[in-house]
């Protein structure tokens, strides 16, 4: 199969494989991410889903938003579950019991289900080499249970388990850099993407589907409930995350790091933090150090990433403005 052209007009005519009627909050980033992933390809897809906002809102009783075969079994095991599905596919095709239709296997998990409780299952599935793509929609907290801290929660953020209190002003640790950890598994493809840069995201999905073996994509997924932001700013925030280099867009293919989008002008981190109520306390005068520390961390990470990319020959020019 040839990779389909990513023309907006054509894509708009295509059939949705994740449809309306789900009960995610209006303005949630996660369904946008799922739609973009599924829209990027015409391959048949079978998906698993970790427990979390996306899962509980998309398949309730006899109602399902999924037009593809979909399985949810528990919270920490989307990778193990899809690895079983993929193994069965392989077995049945090998035995001639099922026609090979080039089916692609995808696991969707939130940051909690991926960075934390599902980390072992993810690591195991990647090491075993299943032909699958794991997509983490990272909204930076356990949103489904009411905005608790995860290891993906950014430094400083106010969550219900690390509230901005009188003594402890929110989360004091930096995020776990899961994208790099997945790259350290030596798998053929790892990428970071944002739904605001939809072309970049979909190209990465397309690339992933052309590669045999385990692939991982980390996608930022704004959550207006947890981020305390407006319901119409998911895409704007996903864009600011990229433009401030809080969430750089890059890929690591067979060990080679490439920055896939470099903002013309790197915006200050506060542009991303300011519209989000979860960071409000960081703008109090006594918490100035927090803003400074958050900015320093982003600068260091960005610097390192650029060095890595430069080592391998630089970054790709942005194709979308």
């Amino acid at each position, binding site marked *: 199969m040839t990779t389909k052209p990513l023309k907006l007009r054509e894509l708009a005519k295509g059939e949705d494989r994740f449809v309306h009627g789900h009960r995610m909050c209006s303005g949630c980033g996660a369904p946008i991410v799922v739609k973009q992933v599924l829209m990027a390809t015409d391959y048949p897809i079978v998906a698993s889903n970790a427990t979390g906002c996306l899962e509980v809102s998309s398949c309730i009783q006899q109602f399902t938003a999924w037009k593809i075969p979909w399985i949810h079994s528990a919270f920490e095991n989307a990778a193990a579950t899809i690895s079983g599905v993929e*193994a*069965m596919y392989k077995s049945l095709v090998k035995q001639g019991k099922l026609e090979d239709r080039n089916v692609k296997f995808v696991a969707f998990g939130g940051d909690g289900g991926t960075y934390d409780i599902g980390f072992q299952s993810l690591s195991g599935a990647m090491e075993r080499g299943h032909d699958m793509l794991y997509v983490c929609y990272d909204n930076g907290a356990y949103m489904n249970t009411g905005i608790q801290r995860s290891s993906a929660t950014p430094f400083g953020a106010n969550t219900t388990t690390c509230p901005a209190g009188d003594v402890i002003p929110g989360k004091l640790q930096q995020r776990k850099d899961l994208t790099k950890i997945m790259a350290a598994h030596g798998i053929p493809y790892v990428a970071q993407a944002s739904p605001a840069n939809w072309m970049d995201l979909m190209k990465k999905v397309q690339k992933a589907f052309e590669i045999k073996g385990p692939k991982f994509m980390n996608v930022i997924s704004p959550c207006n409930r947890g981020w305390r932001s407006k319901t119409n700013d998911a895409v704007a925030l996903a864009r600011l995350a990229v433009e401030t280099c809080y969430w750089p867009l890059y890929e690591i293919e067979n060990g080679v790091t490439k920055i896939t989008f470099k903002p013309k002008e790197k915006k200050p981190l506060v542009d991303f933090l300011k519209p989000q109520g979860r960071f409000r306390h960081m703008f109090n005068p006594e918490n100035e150090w927090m803003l400074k520390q958050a900015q320093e961390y982003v600068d260091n990470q960005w610097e390192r990433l650029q060095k890595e990319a430069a080592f391998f020959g630089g970054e790709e020019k942005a194709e979308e403005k």
Partner: protein
Amino acid sequence: MGKIVAVTGNEACAQALKQINPDVCAAYPITPATDLMQRFSGFVNDGKVDTELVLVESEHSAMSACIGAAAAGGRVATATSSQGLALMWEMLYIAAGTRLPIVMPLVNRALSAPLNIHGDHSDGMGARDTGWIQFYSENAQEAYDNTIQAFRVAEHLDIRLPVIVCMDGFIVSHSIERVEYIDDADVKKFVGKFVAVNPLLDIDNPKSYGPLILTDLYHEYKRAQHEVMTRVPKVVLEVAAEFEKMTGRRYGLFETYRLEDAEMAVVVMSSAAGTTKDIIDQYRDRGVKIGLLKPRMFRPFPFAEIANALKHVKAIAVLDRADSFGGMGPLYSEIAGAVMQMDTKPAMINKIFGLGGRDYLPDQAEHVIDELITLAKTGKVQAVKEYIGVRE
């Protein structure tokens, strides 16, 4: 007529799995089940089976992968013990609630703490309420036969539920016994082709597995699950009858031994039943009317059938190789439940034995029967629940 071999319980179960040739197995090592899947891995790597083997990083993932594979639409097996089963606990309910016909030999082993690798039934009893069908086997032959029959029961279109096949850790899993293997072709024919129901891999007819069901319907789903369980005994007996035709070996929901005219009964599962039968023979020679009931199918528990089999006895000793701390032994509770349906209630005692692989010796059986003799005469229970074979 099959081949007579001298093998361990693990070897026999691995042979059963080889003959059944599942499409996918997911496995993780744990003593004493390790040896079973290790042998099976050998069959995979020597091309003796078509199985796709998924060597996961934990038992939680083993059961998760089995769930994905079974939902995908094919024959699936795994095996475990003790802590491994405990780690699967969450997924056991999901496998049963999703009605997935997974078969899992469980090599019974004690649970930590303290750490112990030897046989008792704590692991299986911990999974009692998960919705899995459970068979307990006395010896390697039964473990082999039960494994083969388990696939038929699990995959039966009226059932579609996962099945655990237990054998006692080390006592059966690692002891060499005489086992009669069934011919490959006969096993293949007996087990038949796998019939997929709503397979996830039916790409053109997409299905969603694992919905959210809240207060308006969850209760009804669980009642439906209960109702499926009520259909199991009939299917188990049908499968056993067919199995008997093929092998001459007879299986029921439970086994009785010299129980028909007995005044007293010992109820015990798995390998300890063998020892008990020998002691019963000795007492019978002396004119003592004692018999035995050995449950084979622990879930669903055949209450009515067991009550009927015990209706004429005056005293019952239930031997549990597991404890429910602060409660009665799990087998005792079930037998008491069954006895409640009888017109005249026998006197009942509960003995906890053999935990962590403590040997169940003939003198323990003798003590139990001696106590039963007094109990049948007096009808007076001294201690309802008591540990036996304890070092004081």
